[in-house]
């Protein structure tokens, strides 16, 4: 089985490298090699191939997406932003890439605008909503955090990001019942989420303390 996978991998590698050797000026051949390299998580090797494809065909639709994605993977957010900005003529993947680069650069207002524009074309993009939840949590915008979390939860009922967003809002507002409900669901879906267990215990403590009789206040002279 492993040999078969190795053999298939080698065949694919040879096929893409051969295509580039045979057609060194063909943008698609370079793009295919780059896409294959990116698929095997060889970002540093893939980036120049995407760049070559883009240089050979400046109107290549997928090469800037690949180049930008590689730059994001390598933590080169400024360069990624430049690539996506040049490619983002209409709301599409390049807009999404631009929003991610802006978020990673902590330019949250601009990132939010780019995400909202992308959501107009893909209203149920789960990844966009999850990234917006991360952005709202970072900026401590509870109302929008709740709004995006509810929207994501309706699109993806098992989304831990959505449940974590709702739990964060509930914990902040000391709504112990809601916090316990969401945290319980989180630990069911992600048993290794330590924050989920901790917050579930706190929420349950909060519920129990409401039923515990408080000691009578003593008058102090």
């Amino acid at each position, binding site marked *: 089985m492993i040999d078969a996978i190795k053999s298939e991998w080698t065949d694919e590698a040879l096929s893409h490298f051969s295509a580039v050797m045979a057609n060194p000026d063909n943008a698609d051949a370079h793009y295919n090699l780059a896409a294959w390299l990116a698929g095997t998580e060889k970002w540093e090797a893939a980036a120049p191939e995407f760049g070559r494809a883009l240089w050979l065909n400046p109107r290549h639709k997928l090469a800037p*997406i690949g180049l930008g994605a590689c730059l994001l993977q390598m933590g080169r957010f400024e360069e990624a932003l430049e690539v996506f900005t040049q490619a983002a003529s209409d709301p599409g993947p390049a807009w999404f890439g631009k929003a991610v680069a802006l978020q990673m650069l902590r330019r949250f207002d601009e990132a939010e605008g780019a995400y909202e524009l992308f959501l107009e074309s893909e209203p149920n*993009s789960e990844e966009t909503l*999850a990234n917006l939840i991360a952005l709202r949590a970072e900026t401590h915008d509870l109302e929008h955090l709740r709004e995006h979390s509810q929207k994501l939860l309706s699109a993806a009922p098992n989304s831990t990001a959505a449940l974590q967003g709702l739990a964060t809002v509930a914990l902040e507002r000391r709504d112990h019942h809601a916090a316990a409900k969401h945290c319980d669901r989180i630990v069911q879906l992600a048993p290794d989420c330590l924050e989920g267990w901790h917050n579930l215990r706190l929420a349950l403590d909060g519920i129990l303390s409401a039923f515990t009789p408080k000691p009578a206040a003593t008058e102090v002279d």
Partner: protein
Amino acid sequence: MVSPKRQIVIPIPRPQLVSPPVNSVEQPKAFQFAVSWRTLLAQLQVVEVRVEPVAVEIVPRETAARALQVVDPPPLPPEDEPAWEMVVPKMIRRPS
């Protein structure tokens, strides 16, 4: 008189776990929200490579000849000397 070397050993109690002060309130732990871009990576599908047919340049005969380095043929032999001779194999009768 008590020898100076003799000491009274008092067992030191181990530090005990103490309950937190009454007023300390445990805080919720912030969830770790991650930023991802799988949407971008999902776009990177292999495309069909189309090779454009290369236009063939038609060059004049002289240019082609120069490029091919055509050399002159070897000189022909004189007319009176046969360039070659046909040898007819003789028929030999096999003894019966």
